[in-house]
């Protein structure tokens, strides 16, 4: 197993003055192998989204270092970070965040176009995989919440990212739809051997990853390991 992600003493603080007011992350250490999965638990405001943003290269830690595949993210420029997100990371959000003016097809194609390889077959293949083979021409507003989330998953996975970051992907969905989505994420991750970090509040989602971590007062604690 090769190591994909390593966090070394990562801290994040938000401050309005010289002192830290909020300390969502405090000296967090973590190693994740290629293809492994983890679930991140924690109360609201505990820093889960902050954690994902730092790992995903959207935000930078106040101190500490983050490595991806041996590259130190914390040393990269903004442009390189954008490039990193473009190539390696797939984000899935609680509120889908599809572009309302782009068709489903265009939404899914977008990441490929950003990389410069607009491969339509690949996009169609992914829409097939998430069970929406006929949605290509439709606009997102015509789809149900569950269907929109499937499109969002297709958009996150179309570029075959090594890392998938999901922030409460089932938070806005009913239980049945949520389960379908989870199975889908499970499937595509196995297919691509992608690493998954998923934030969830739902007990029904815990099966997707063997290791469950919890953020508490800025500390990352390993809570459960399922075999």
């Amino acid at each position, binding site marked *: 197993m090769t190591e994909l992600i390593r966090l070394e003493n990562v801290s994040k603080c938000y401050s309005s003055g010289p002192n830290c007011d909020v300390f969502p992350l405090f000296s967090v250490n973590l190693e994740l192998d290629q293809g492994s999965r983890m679930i991140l638990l924690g109360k609201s405001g505990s820093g889960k*989204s*902050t954690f994902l*943003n730092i790992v*995903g290269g*959207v*935000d930078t830690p106040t101190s500490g270092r983050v490595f991806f595949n041996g590259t130190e993210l914390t040393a990269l420029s*903004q*442009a390189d*970070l*954008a*490039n*990193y*997100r*473009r*190539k390696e*990371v797939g*984000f899935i*959000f*609680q*509120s889908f*965040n599809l*572009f*309302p*003016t*782009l068709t489903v097809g265009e939404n899914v194609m*977008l*990441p490929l*176009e*950003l990389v410069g390889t607009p491969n339509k077959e690949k996009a169609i293949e992914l829409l097939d995989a998430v069970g929406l083979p006929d949605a290509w021409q439709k606009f997102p*507003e015509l789809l149900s919440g569950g269907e929109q989330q499937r499109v969002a998953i297709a958009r996150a996975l179309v570029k075959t990212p090594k890392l998938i970051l999901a922030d409460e992907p089932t938070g806005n969905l009913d239980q049945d739809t949520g389960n379908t989505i989870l199975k889908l994420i499970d499937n595509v991750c196995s297919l691509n051997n992608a690493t998954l970090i998923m934030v969830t509040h739902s007990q029904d989602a815990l099966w997707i990853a063997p290791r469950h971590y919890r953020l508490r007062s800025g500390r990352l604690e390993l809570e459960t390991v399922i075999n």
Partner: protein
Amino acid sequence: MSFTTLLKFNFRYYKRHSLLALLCLMGISLGVGIVIAVELINVSALASFSSSIDFLSGKASHSVVSNYGRIDEEDFRSIWTDKSVAAASPVIDVMGTTVETGSDSIRFLGIDPFLDSSFRAWTPQGADDKSLLIFLSNPVPAVYLSEGLAKKHKLKTGDQLTVLKAGIEKKIKLIGMIDPSVSGSLTENIGVMDIAAAQELFGRTGRLDRIDLVINGDPEDLRNSLPQGLVLTDANSRKATLNSILYSFQLNLAAMSLLALFVGVFLIYNFSMFSVLSRREDMSLLLTIGSDRRSLIGAFIAESTLLGAAGSFIGVIFGYLVAYFSINMVSSTISQLYYQVNVGSVGLTFPIVLSGVAVGFVATLVGVILPSFEVAVTPPVIGIKRQSIEDRASSLKGWLLVLGAVFFILSAFCAWASRFSIFWGFTSAFGMTLAFALFTPYSLSIFTHHLGTFLKKTFNSLTGFLAARNVKASLSRTSIAVAALAVALSMTIGVDTMIYSFRTSVADWLDGSLQGDIYISPETTKWDHPLPEDLMEKFGSDPRVDWLEKYSTFDIYIDGRLAKLRVLESEILSGKARFNFIQGSQESWKELVKGAAFISESLGFRFGIKLGDTMKLPTPKGLIEFPVVAITRDYSSDQGTVQIDRNIYRKLWGDDRVQSIALFLRPGVSTEEVKSDIIAEFKGLERTVVSNTQMRDTVLGIFDKTFAPTATLKGVSLLVGLLGVATAMMAILMERSSDIKVLGYLGLNSGQLGRMNIYQGLIMGLFAFLIASLCGMALTYIIVHAINFRSFGWSIDIKLNPWVFFETLSLTMAACFASSLYPTFRLMRIKSAPALKEE
């Protein structure tokens, strides 16, 4: 929740969005400012000539003037002795310039000091016998001048002045000042001379310009007993005559200012809409925690009203400044085209301020009503998505298209109806502009959709694609900004195309009528200063000169309305000039010699005279009938021109004065050589002897100067339109910030985001330009056929100038680029911010 609490709450908002509020404020002030400026200019011009008429009439209750431009001195006695006349004073009233006072023109009044003393306070009354004697009989004609003018040019009593009379210099002597306490608020420069000296000096021996009267009986008695061709008027009807001459000029100015205001309303609307939309969450929240809808809307309208008040206030000041700095230019244009006005100052009166403020308020209200309606109909649910508003806007666009089509048809109908009243011409222009503004949302939506796909497919430009789709996504916002910009641009294109076409037509007309090699045409021609006889004798017999052609233009009254009578020499012109005959032909020249008349289009239009009609012209021999044998295109005066042959004129009017001449040289003779001979022989003609091309350039120069104020108005409306684009881009930025952030998560770097944002501005500019090109051409058509023709009576051939389009496009693109810089700067500072707000 109380109203004031809400208001306070709202002002918090303005603190955070001070830049936007500032832009909106500027929109109101610009619109109001232009309206105020135009009104001030109009009012000041009117006030100037009406105070001048009042002053010059003095205590006179009436005046006798001539329908054919001059009163025979012989007629004075019979009028003076009429039983209803209590007092009478003969007057020479002529404009002139002197070398010493440069470009300040002077109104010279020739009076009889004994007869005039009962009329005016400024006759050299108090003067002792000696100075009266000088006034009457100095070998060098004596003159009293306005004190202000003398001071300005550092002239002292005893100085000699050089009057430029038809380019010939004549000396006069300054013997005293007219006290400003006498001339009051009059801004015009006055010179008072003895009547005999003035007649001699200005070549009016044996004639009078006016006879001022105090009547104690029934004016009708006198009116009936007046000699042929003379009419009785009073100060008010003279004002009304001058006023009506300016009517079209002022109407056009006013229409331009309304268009500027139209764009201003768009901007206000844009801002209010934005301020409501971006506060929707706040408002829903306020409603949920118990404030009622009515006070919410009330607070919103109150806040807009305050903004309107502030904007109007600044607008009034701005307008005053614009008027203050442009009044000289406008009054010199009026003097050039119509008659002398000398506007000393612009006076901001309470009614004008009030009208400016009212205009600002109405504009603000119009701009605010729709957005408040939005608030009123939106259910108080927190988190109504922006998308649902866009959905509504999106479904609305079809209806707007239909409405636009209705306005288009109405506008076409109004253009047709302009034959009944010029009002419909302006309505048509407004309707057309509105129609295209209404077409904007639908066409913009389609355009951006295809443009996006095109940019991606053809140029492989993802940022271009996203930019196009973003514009489409915020249609409610962008289409308004694009429509506002398109309105401003179409006005620019329409007016510029009109001016270009007009200029081309004028140039063609000049080419056709200016065939001589050398023109001696003093600037004072318009003031009726005849050329010296010996000049014509000398060059008429010069072997180098093939033909010498004499021109004169006189003011005549046809049915009580002012028009121009042009006297020309048919035998020479028929073979040389290429008149643009609208009706009639080269053959018509033969009729002219026999006593027929050519009329200009504008005369035919104003007096409803058609080819084949006969018209009656006032002559010293009474009304004489002239058959109309041709209608020509002639842009020399919008009052209309009648052209008759010189032989006929000489016979009927008993007058052979010449104001300008054209020399046709023999082949091989050098124009420059003859020119310098004339100058050497006749001192003072340096600036007056011009070649054919110089003459043409001078006329076109006046043309260009006339349309110079248009450029200012154009610039302002363009500015207003561009402020709209900047506001819209800020709005998109705020409303779609979550979309923009998702793009950051997907790996768009800040450079790409910035480029995308700038493309948005450029796309809006490009589309506004496309709409404006179509609308502008439609407007040109309306301006030329339904406004210009209806107000001036002349036709223009429409010519498209690619340069106008190119210039407008590049200006727009540059300006859109500039107005997207600040929003882009703001956008790039957002970075890929960590907090992607969950909705």
